[in-house]
């Protein structure tokens, strides 16, 4: 498996709180992508961070990448109830055509 530690977890927080989700991967990747999947829907990309970047921001989202420890994180500030979803990280298996998804984090934001 491309993925190291199991990143499947469930987080439940109150609206307005900040949250950070983590994942680690085993082999070299050119990018890490973070996707969000709402219940019964297809995933949608939130942010993409390349191997030569340490941090990427987009609105309330912040992604980090540490290639030395082969880990990435996604932070959401000021969460909203509409942020409730499963969040996946994904790597490209060294630039191949295969996108490999981690186990995901179920985030529930309570209003």
């Amino acid at each position: 498996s491309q993925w190291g530690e199991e990143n499947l977890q469930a987080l439940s927080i109150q609206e307005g709180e900040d949250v950070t989700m983590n994942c680690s991967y085993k082999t070299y990747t050119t990018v890490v992508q973070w996707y969000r999947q709402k219940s019964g829907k297809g995933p949608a990309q939130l942010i993409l961070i390349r191997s030569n970047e340490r941090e990427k921001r987009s609105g309330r989202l912040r992604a980090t990448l540490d290639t030395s420890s082969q880990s990435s994180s996604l932070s959401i500030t000021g969460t909203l109830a509409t942020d409730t979803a499963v969040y996946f990280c994904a790597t490209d298996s060294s630039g191949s055509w295969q996108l490999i998804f981690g186990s995901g984090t179920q985030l529930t934001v309570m209003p």
Partner: protein
Amino acid sequence: AQTIHQWPVAEIKAVGSPLSLGCTIKGKSSPNLYWYWQATGGTLQQLFYSITVGQVESVVQLNLSASRPKDDQFILSTEKLLLSHSGFYLCAWSLWASSYEQYFGPGTRLTVL
């Protein structure tokens, strides 16, 4: 604007019966196409990818096959369904290799009884 359509929305099928799921992308010429499978509560597993008409590569073996008969169409099928085929099937497209954003369709929920 590009749109991705999957059909059917949901299927309930018997073990041993055939299956055909479809995916159409409109508004994008020569996209890269992908099929994914997702067990309930699980992660996404890429099954197939195609970078051109008539050419499909398998990523994992799950007794499924895929075809790309037209530039904008991707078909997933099997002649004999197994219980383990139950799940959520997602079609996706991208402009370039998987190192770039993939755009997912709404999915097809398959229940095999």
